[in-house]
Every structure is written in C-alpha cells, then in structure tokens.
C-alpha cells in the first residue's frame, strides 16, 4: 500500500480539539433553538403543490431544444410533393420529421421510392405522431386527479398524537428489556425516536429513516420489505470498525426514526411528505440517513436539506450506475429524474453535483455535453478504466471535501457490481467492489462535512440470499464510522488505525518506526482523555 495515501498520524488532543467540542455543543444548542422556532413555521415549502396547481417551474427540457436549420430538398423531388400543402412541405424539411426520415439524403431516397399519394400519407402520419405525442388541452388530462372527495384523503400520512400513548419523557426509546436490546428489530438495534422532540432531547447525531417508496423503480420491491430487511440485518451497524478502531455507537447518538409514510400509487404525493420529515430531522442538527426505497427519494431528501441549510448551499455526491438527470417525459418525478429536478428547482447548483460510478446505457453525448457545460463533476467507470480506482477515489474525496461544502451522499446500491448487489431494480455489471465502496463512503463521511445520506434501490426479493442487504448494511456502517471519525476529529486524508493496519514487527514497508510512534501517540492521547473530566 502506498504510504502517501494513508495518514497514520493522529492529531494530539489539544486546544483545537476542545474548540471542536465546544463548537459541537454550541451547534446542538442552536439546533434545539431552531426546532423550537420551527414549530411555528408553515408546514409546507413554497413549492408545495396545492389544489390543482400546475408545476410551478419551467418543465421543458432545454437539451431537447433543437436549433438545426431545416433541410433543403432538391427540385428533382418536387413532383413527389405535389399533393402536400405548404405546411406539410415545411414539416417534412423540419427537424421534427428527421426522427422518422433520417438525414436529408435518406429523405430524398424515401421520397423517390414513393408515389405522391404515398408521400402525402407518409407525411401526415408523421405529423399525427408528433402532434399526438404532445399534450393537447381538451384531449389529454393535464394532471392525475386524486379523489378529493375521500373522507380519508390524508389518512396515509396522518401522525399519531403523542397523547394517545402513555406519557413518557422525550428522547430515544429503547424497545427491549436487556439494556434496551431484545425488542422488535430496529436499524442497528438503536433506540427508536418518533418526533423531533425525541431527537432534540436525546441530542441525536444521526436519525435513520426508512422510506419504503417503490413506485418509481424498475423492479418494485423496495417497499416495506427493504426497510424491514435492513432492520432484520441491522446488528452490524452498531459494531466496532476494525480499520479505524472506532465504534460508531459509542461516539454518536444514533436512532431509528421509523419509516416515513409514502403513497406508493403516487410518487409526487409522497415527495412533499418525505421532504417535510427530512426537513424536520435536519432542523434539529441531526444527519438524516434515509434508507430503502427508489431513487426518486434523492429529490425530497436534498430539497429537505436545502430547506434547512438554504438553497444552493448543499452539494450532492451521487453514487449510481445511472445519471438520473433524465427529464422531458410526461411525469415530473420517477427514479430517473431527481438530479434534473433538484437543479431545475434551484435546490442544488449543477456545479455542486459530483457523480460517481456511472456506466449505464445513458446518457448519450447530449447528456454528457449538458453535464460538462453545467460544470457537474462526473466520474464514470470509464474514468476508472482509464486511471484506476485509487486516482479517482482521491480526486472525488478532494472535490467533495472542498472548503465550505455541506454534503449529501446519495448512494444507489446499483453503483456496486451486481456480484455484490444483485437485489436492485436496475443492476448494471462492471461496478464498484465492496473493497472500493467501503473506503470511499467511510472517507467521505469522515473527511467532508456530511449533512445527509441516503441508500436506495434495495429490492430484497431479487436476492434469495441476504448478500445484498448485508452489503447495503455495511455501506451504511461505513458512513456511520466516518461520521464518528469526523466527530472525533479524525478528518485527515485516509486515516487508518496505526495499530490495526500494520503489525510493525518488522520493517517490511520501511515505515515500522512511524507506525510504532503513531500507535504510542494514540495511547498517550487515550490516557490523557481518561484523565479529563467526563462531560
């Protein structure tokens, strides 16, 4: 292993670290105050669609705007156009017709093969398709109506008043009788929290939220099965991380924040509610960690963070085999649209988007040209093929850790190779290994300022083994470990424990003494810490 990639020198506990502690305490206080104030604020964001509003943003896809000039037709084909009206001739020359006729020379050849009558029917058929593909008032319904007469219209998202259950103090709720364990399964066997009061009272650092959304997916099993399976297999989350010798659950207060209500017959409807819940978590200062469902979730997750931290104040790193910036279909959300929609609505600047692992059939040149023009930092598997993973890893972490960035990590498990994550809606071979994915997630959560995280597109039924759920769990754990390292101040480049990463009995790598010194320094520091009065 190249030594310049590994930092084994742990900072000595000093006045700066104390400042970090004070800053953390102050941040928690500010967060608690923010929550108290937030209670009076309107529940919904300005963009929340109410009644039968149209989409309150421009919705055309500028990438589809086409400024090519119309083609020229030679005089020799004029007899073939005899039956066409001037409008029909203009259409035949236009770019709308190119989708059917191909380039000019193909058009001329096709005209020569047809009689004037056939040409007329041909052009009219093209116009029919172009016109019928577009929305037409009166013919097409402009929206998807819900049954507003339903007396149970909001039953799906109504929250149970705290007063319906026996009184308890606010804070995380242990569900078991043995030191909180032994109850119904929660993420990581962490205690449950049901409201922001619980998060504030417990000074919660990370709230893991299940999101059983599956309407927007290719294969649809990312519903309640995904969040349930992640809970059933939750135990590795709490354990010691051998690489860095940190146990996240000892450093961070982590809770299971239950599942967010979703309407799996209408993704758009789920969006505003999920955004509300993500916002309420983030407003307490806790990191919302959203797990489970389809990648439409990236939209409400990041929008919810932007509601708290401000528009264009959050950067996103998007791990995925797909770029998810599709647009221009009849729908405004689905698991292929969240990136475009977030940029379109101004929640995230395009240049604050970093994408890692792309390798699916799209985007094409138009999509990549758009990303490059917009300043998006994309790191496709083609770049990994050209430069190797280690180079890309360092570049990505450096970009994500730039000064001042608040980072949301959106981890679609299809970024992993199907060998590691076959239970996903749209798997694509040639992806990351777990040995690549764990370090990058751990490092990002340790070395950058992570304010949100999601892990999406787990479809347990597609994997009769529990491998995909296990690997998903370890991705979440990698981030929890990183967040714990960050809180402990272990934010330097690629920290690994000098004790666990090298036996240092001989000088095989020529760094024996450095490892031994670093280990001793850590031992000294741990002793100092024991002497310090506990908080």
């Amino acid at each position, binding site marked *: 292993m190249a030594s310049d990639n590994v930092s084994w020198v742990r900072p000595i506990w000093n006045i700066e670290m104390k400042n970090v502690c004070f800053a953390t305490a102050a941040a928690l206080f500010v967060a608690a105050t923010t929550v108290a104030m937030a209670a009076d604020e309107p529940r919904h964001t300005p963009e929340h669609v109410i009644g039968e509003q149209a989409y309150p943003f421009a*919705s055309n896809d500028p990438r589809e705007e086409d400024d090519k000039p119309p083609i020229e037709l030679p005089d020799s084909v004029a007899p073939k156009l005899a039956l066409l009206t001037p409008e029909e001739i203009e259409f035949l020359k236009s770019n709308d017709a190119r989708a059917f006729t191909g380039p000019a020379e193909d058009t001329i050849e096709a005209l020569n093969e047809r009689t004037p009558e056939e040409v007329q029917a041909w052009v009219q*058929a093209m116009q029919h398709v172009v016109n019928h593909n577009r929305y037409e008032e009166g013919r097409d319904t402009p929206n998807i109506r*819900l049954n507003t007469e339903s007396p149970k*219209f909001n039953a799906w998202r109504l929250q149970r008043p705290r007063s*319906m259950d026996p009184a308890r103090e606010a804070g995380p709720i242990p569900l078991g009788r043995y030191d909180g364990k032994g109850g119904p399964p929660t993420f990581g066997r962490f205690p449950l929290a049901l409201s922001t009061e619980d998060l504030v009272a417990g000074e919660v650092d990370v709230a893991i939220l299940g999101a059983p959304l599956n309407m927007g997916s290719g294969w*649809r099993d990312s519903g309640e099965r995904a969040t349930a399976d992640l809970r059933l297999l939750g135990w590795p989350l709490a354990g010691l991380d051998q690489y860095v010798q940190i146990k996240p659950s000892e450093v961070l207060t982590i809770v299971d924040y239950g599942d967010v209500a979703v309407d799996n*017959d209408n993704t758009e409807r789920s969006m505003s509610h999920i955004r509300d819940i993500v916002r309420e978590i983030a407003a307490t200062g806790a990191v919302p960690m959203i797990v489970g469902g389809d990648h439409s979730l990236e939209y409400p997750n990041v929008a919810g963070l932007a509601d708290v931290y401000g528009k264009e104040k959050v950067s996103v790193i998007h791990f995925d085999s797909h770029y998810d910036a599709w647009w221009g*279909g009849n*729908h405004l959300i689905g698991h292929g649209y969240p990136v475009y929609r977030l940029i379109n609505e101004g929640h995230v600047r395009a240049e604050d988007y970093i994408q890692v692992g792309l390798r699916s059939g799209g985007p094409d040149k138009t999509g990549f040209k758009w990303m490059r023009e917009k300043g998006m930092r994309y790191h496709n598997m083609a770049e990994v093929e050209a430069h190797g993973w280690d180079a890309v890893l360092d570049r990505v972490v450096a970009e994500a850790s730039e000064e001042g960035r608040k980072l949301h990590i959106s981890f679609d498990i299809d970024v992993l190779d199907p060998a590691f994550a076959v239970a996903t809606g749209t798997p694509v071979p040639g992806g990351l290994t777990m040995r690549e994915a764990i370090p990058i997630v751990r490092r990002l959560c340790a070395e950058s300022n992570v304010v949100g995280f999601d892990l999406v597109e787990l479809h347990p039924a597609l994997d009769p083994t529990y491998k995909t759920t296990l690997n998903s769990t370890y991705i979440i754990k990698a981030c929890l470990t990183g967040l714990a390292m960050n809180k402990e101040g272990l934010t330097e480049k690629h920290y690994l424990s000098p004790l666990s990463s090298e036996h240092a009995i001989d000088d095989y790598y020529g760094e024996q003494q450095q490892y031994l010194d670093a280990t001793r320094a850590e031992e000294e520091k741990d002793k100092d810490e024991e002497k310090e009065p506990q908080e």
Partner: protein
Amino acid sequence: MSPQGILARCGMVTLILALLLPPFERAAGQWPIPEELLAPLSALNAEQLEFVSSGAALEFIPERQLEYELATRDADSLRSLVDDLMAVAAEMGYDPNRDMGATPLNLASKRFNKGKLPTPAPLRKLKRDAGPFSVHRYLFPTSGVPTFAGAKVAIWPEDLVAGKVDIAIIGIPSNASSGRRDARHGPNAMRATNTIAATDEQSLIEPHEILSVVDYGDFSVDWLSTELTVDHVTDMVAETAETGAIPMLVGGDTSMLYPGVKGIAKARGRGTFGLLQFNAHPDSERFGDHTVSDRQAMFLLLDEGIVNGSETVQVGLRGSALDLESLQWLRSQKVRYHTMAEIQQRGFDKVLTKVIREVERGPDAFFVSIDVSVIDPAEMIAAGRIAPNGLSIDEVTRAIRHVCAAKDIVGFEITDMAPMLDVSRLSVINANAVLNACLVGIAVRKAGLEPDYVHPLVLDHGQR
C-alpha cells in the same frame, strides 16, 4: 406489581389491541357513552364534548381505548388528548389550500403520450399482408421467440380479422399492485414458460385445431400512473373485442381488471354480460384517495354500471380487506359472493355447484377474471397480494374450465402474478394452467361437447 406497573401494562395491552383491531365502522351519530364514563366528560368544553359524544373520535381511536382513557386520565390530560384527536380529524380530509388534489404533469413534454401511440400504417417499417404470422423458422418448433400458447403473433386489428382469430392473448404489464409488486413481468414469464394449449388430457381435444389463437403482444402502460393507463387499455381492449376475437388478458396488477372489463363493455354494451371473479380480495374500496387502483377495481365496475351486481359472482374472498362494511356493500349491490369461510363450512363442491347455478341463471355472456391471490400460497406463492387458506389449483381450474365451456365468454383476465416472488417455476406454471383451463373450456364449447366432457379412453382403461 406496583399500581404504575399495572397501569403501564394495561396501557400496553390497550395499545396492542388498538394496533390489532381496525376501527369499527359506525354510522354518523351518537356514541353511546357508558354511564360510568360521563363524569370525566365534564372536563371538556362544548366543542370537545360534541366531538367525543358524536362518535367522530372513534375513527381514530378504538372504542375500548377511548373508554380506558376516559376512565383513567385527569382533566388536563383528557383535554389534550381530545384536542389532538380533533386536530387529526381536521387534517383527515382534503383541503385545497393545504393538499395536492391533482399531480401536475410535464405539459411541455414532447413525449407526453409516447408509448400509447400505435405506429400509423405509413410509418411501419415492414410491409406485409394482414394475418397472424409465425415467429419460427421450423415447421415443428420446440423453442424460439416465446409467445403465449406458442401461438402465432398478431399486431394490428386487421391481422385478427384476416386470421378470423378466436382468441387474442394479450399482456398488460402494469405494476401497481397494492401488495408486493412484480406483476409487470407476469406476461413475459407466462410466455417464456409455455404450458398453454397442449392436448387436453380430459377431452383429448387439441385447442389449436379448434381455435385460432394468437399472441397479440402487450398493451402499453404508464409505469408511474394507473390513472394514465386506464383509458388506453380500455380503448385497446374494445378495439380487439370489436374484431370478434375474445381478449384473454394477462396482467399486470388487478387495477387492470377495470379497463379490461370496461373495454369489453365499450365494445358490447354495459350490463350485457356477467362477471365471474375469483379473488381473495373484494376490491370494493369506496372511499379511496385515488381514482383507480386494484383495491377499487370491483367498486368502479359496479358503481359505473359496467356490470350489474346481480350478475357478478365473486369466489374465494378472504383477506384483510374483507370487513363488515365491504360485505354489507357487496350484499347491497346484490353481488353473489362466496367467501372462503362459506367454502370451508359447506365444502368446495357444494359451493361450486351454487356458483355454476348462479352463472347459468345469469346472462348468456360472461367475463371470467381471476386475481391469482385466490389460489393457496402453496400453489401460488407469487401472488402479489397473497392470502393464506385459499383454493387449490385443481378447484380453480375445474371451476373456470366449466364456466368457460358452459357460457359465451366475452373476455378473460388473469392478474397479479409477480414472478419474482417465486424462485421456482410453480407459480408461472399454475398461472398458465388457469389461462389454459378457460382456453380449453372455450375449445370444448366450440367443439360442441358438454362442459365437463371426459373422453372414454381417458376415464377408464377398459380392461376386465
């Protein structure tokens, strides 16, 4: 145990009961408050009192728990509970200033209706004469491009007309089941595991020799909206039926029952045929917040008069949606329903006899539909909305074969088989067996045989 402990335990028990028991549906009006609980009510103001005594609170809290809360809470705590429940009640219905009443769509899209637009004739790449065509190179193929029943392919209505097609088997790969979702892969799984239209081991007829069967491809669906799928499927089913072919529809989730039956009604007239449905779920949800879904399919068909309740027979009902209210409503609609409880009480054969009699007394024409959840999970683990204690595959195929042979079948639909949920091929094979039962039934009828005809060679070896 300390008094607090007992209270906590009571609370826990009540909580568990609250989770287990669905709120009891009750007519608007008064809640007969037990006399011993009247005293605590004096703590409430007029508005709160009205809310509790009207019974409106029971929509949100089970009666038992409310009684317990009245008996045990102090005045402040009771007031705050009632206030909270009133706040929840105020948020329950639709408010145009708070809630989205309709999902906006991308009206600027250049592909707003893409996928729902069949290619006009002048733009079709290949010129050929109308009629069903084989997808095979060989005269006696054993593999190749998979089609339903190994049948020829037809693409356009003129193919059906030219081929005088009797049966058009069609996939509708919708994927919005309210259970586990993978029904979109049902049609292709059934094509890929072809066990349809082989020699019938009961009558020894060859379905392909009696009927002209085609694979009519899939009808397009909008993955993200059942609402936006319904009209196109309705139109396509109607167009198919108008050629004289019988559409045999393969879902897709059970929301597609609505456009399936509606399309036949569009071609043949509302209320001109009966509906025999095998389903674990009544699908008669009346107050849903959506305009269409699998849970509402039967309600929509009955409510819009597409089929008459008295000419609708449902078999195999059970499952969590089969509550008092839904049964009362089905009865009020004169639906002939047969629950699994009835079948367990009286035995399947007796109930089947009754079902057959009801069908015989109904109109000449029938639409036969099955949500695969009606079959026991032992033989259909891939049902999206699975419910234990169902019918056996033998019971279902026997019933369907008889009815398809006894009546003039105007349409058939099988829905909500989600292949991903079965790592074996069993569910797909049994789904094919169900479709095959109706196909063979139709062939038996066309051949002029009695519905339950058994060839003498099959029935007995004839040796002394």
